[in-house]
């Protein structure tokens, strides 16, 4: 018994009435208006999936070819489902999977190259082209903005301004930078905040926080931290970092697309790549600090002792852990500093009176740095 269907030949947009039978492993499609019979191997026939017309319509095809056979009544559809054994089988394409893996690997490699080679290279190059005066203006603005995140104690202003204290800090910086080639003049300010921290903004702006002066046991420890920040200044790290993270954010934002899970991955990847960058920069700044301390005749042992205490406190789960999260393992840093200390002379960096003045620098405060 022949079933009826419509044949679409894939060459003209007409539909041709056809009689369909199955014989000898072949589906025979006899076109009614043309004296022609087509034979499709039953094993190779596939049905279109995810179609709207459940049982009433079945569209058959041979994978990779344009012609279609449309069956439109329930009886015929049921017959075809039993006659063709592999209607719903996936048409396998072994080259397809290989292509997906190959292209995915290629895309991942290009993105990695972009994130870890091209963007850092471009940022480093362009950071050098920023006019120092413009960078200093920007740095001042960033320093002021960053200052707003910290609240000064009740009744005091945000920036410490005791003349003798600032002079002592200036003397310390002079001694550390003597003979060093900095891209721009240093501007050091003391922020009236309890955090044990210091940071470098673009354009030679360095901010030391009051908490650091309170927590340090000697002027040498302060000098060690200051020398480390000077390393960031010498290497133009803040500007390089800012340019690089702008590029990184642009790439990862795109790759994430619009799905929440992917956005979380992008955020994690960005944190990772920024931290990776930061670790490089921190190690370089440490090396610079050790070199400057040695040149100034200050024992880098101070750097080591300061790091040791930081590590002990950070281990206790204090908020320092968060502050120093982007820094290389403190134990490692103190070991490196200790090795450097073995080769250097030891001269006090400040006189006892100067050190006392520096510790009292927040006796007076003002609103502007």
């Amino acid at each position: 018994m022949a079933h009826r269907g419509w044949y679409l030949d894939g060459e003209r947009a007409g539909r041709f009435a056809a009689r369909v039978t199955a014989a000898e492993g072949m589906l025979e499609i006899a076109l009614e208006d043309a004296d022609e019979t087509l034979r499709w191997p039953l094993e190779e026939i596939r049905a279109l999936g995810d179609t709207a017309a459940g049982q009433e319509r079945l569209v058959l095809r041979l994978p990779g070819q344009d012609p279609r056979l449309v069956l439109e009544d329930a009886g015929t559809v049921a017959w075809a489902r039993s006659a063709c054994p592999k209607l719903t089988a996936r048409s396998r394409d072994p080259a397809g999977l290989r292509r997906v893996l190959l292209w995915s690997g290629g895309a991942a490699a290009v993105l990695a190259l972009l994130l870890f080679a091209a963007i850092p290279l471009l940022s480093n190059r362009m950071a050098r082209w920023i006019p120092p005066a413009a960078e200093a203006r920007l740095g001042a603005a960033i320093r002021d903005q960053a200052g707003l995140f910290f609240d000064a104690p009740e009744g005091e202003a945000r920036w410490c301004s005791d003349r003798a204290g600032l002079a002592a800090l200036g003397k310390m910086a002079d001694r550390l930078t003597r003979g060093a080639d900095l891209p721009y003049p240093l501007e050091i300010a003391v922020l009236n905040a309890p955090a044990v921290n210091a940071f470098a903004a673009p354009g030679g702006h360095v901010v030391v926080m009051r908490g650091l002066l309170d927590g340090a046991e000697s002027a040498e420890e302060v000098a060690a931290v200051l020398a480390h920040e000077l390393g960031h200044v010498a290497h133009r790290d803040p500007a390089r970092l800012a340019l690089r993270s702008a590029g990184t954010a642009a790439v990862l934002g795109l790759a994430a697309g619009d799905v929440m899970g992917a956005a979380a991955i992008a955020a994690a990847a960005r944190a990772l790549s920024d931290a990776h960058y930061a670790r490089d920069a921190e190690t370089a700044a440490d090396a610079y600090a050790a070199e400057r301390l040695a040149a100034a005749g200050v024992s880098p042992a101070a750097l080591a002792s300061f790091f040791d205490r930081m590590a002990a406190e950070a281990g206790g789960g204090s908020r320092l852990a968060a502050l120093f999260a982007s820094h290389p393992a403190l134990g490692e840093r103190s070991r490196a500093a200790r090795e450097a200390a073995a080769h250097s002379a030891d001269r006090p960096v400040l006189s006892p009176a100067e050190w006392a003045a520096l510790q009292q620098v927040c006796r007076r405060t003002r609103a502007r740095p």
Partner: protein
Amino acid sequence: MATEPEAGSPLQGRYSGSASALFWLALRTGLLTVATLGLYRFWAKTRIRRKLWSSIDPGGDALEYTGTGTEKFLGFLIAVVVLGSLAAVLAVVLSFLGFALFRPEAPGGLTALNLVLQNAGAIFAPLYFFAAYRARRYLLSRTTWRGIRFGMEPGAWGYAWRGCLYAALTGASLGLLWPLMTFRLEAYLCDRSWFGDARLRQGGRWTMLYKAMTPLLLSVPALALAVPAWVAGLPFSSLLLLGAGGVFAYGLVHYRVESFAIMARHKTAGQGIRLGAAPRPRVVALRYYGGWAAVAAVIGLCGLALLAGFARIVPMPDLDDTAGAAALVPLLAGGLALYGLVSPLRLVFVTQPVLAHLVRHAWVETPILLTSVGQRPGDAMADADGFADALDLGGAF
């Protein structure tokens, strides 16, 4: 059994999709997408398009969507690599310019710098038009009817600069030249489109679209009266504002639907095959806004039920300790599931009803001429609609 339409009668569009089948397909593929961190979305999109296309069956022959998830995924990889490189260089150079030209005394100082950097994406505007053209070309090249492929010629860059130009003109004229943009861009797309070896042509003039703008233009003076009245706190002004806002919202849909219909009636394919459409803007507006209201209602009710159920199980979690915060996990999971519901609900309540109305009120005149249309070669398009996907140019499906 469908039969060949008579020579004289037009071939009317038919739509036969079921809401529940579409909903379950969208939900299943949506869950898979979430479970695979978004990777499955290319295959999900493919399956939903197959379902929608097969629901459209003018003359008893359904459209067929022949795109694959794999080619979309590969296209996305290409787009990400190309756009990623472009975005990286652009972001670094823009930041550099921002730093080098920074003036704290300029109005806004840092704030202005941040604003410029955050909106640097505007430089991507031509790329959006580029991606939209490529996506349309991909869509057409993967659509067949009666075994014959649709297709589109290359021309994405021409579309990109025209799109930017007309968008700028529309903005500069406060929307008065919107019909110019609508007409010229659609004509650009249409005149490069083919069904098999039959070329599509857009006829008519851009000024004919002003008729479609009537409700929108009427709502402008109404809004111009209502907003100041509402700000001044005059009595009944909020009712006036609501009314004017309603007319404006309706006017937007009216313009989209009517401009589409007017232009469709001026389209021809091949040798004298005329196309036509006469959708009812009021029906579309009702289905569109009503559909969104239904989505919002379902999501809102489920959200309330979730919160109520959660409050019953866990009285008041103490967010400071870990156990308390962990108690929030089921709530977050519930929220995530609700988010996953939005897209299937939108398909069922908004996309499909609107699409069904548009299809049912469209037709092909002299369909007998269609049988002479021949096949066209396939269009490889390695990037598929990857650029549109990477730029989040989602569209309804």
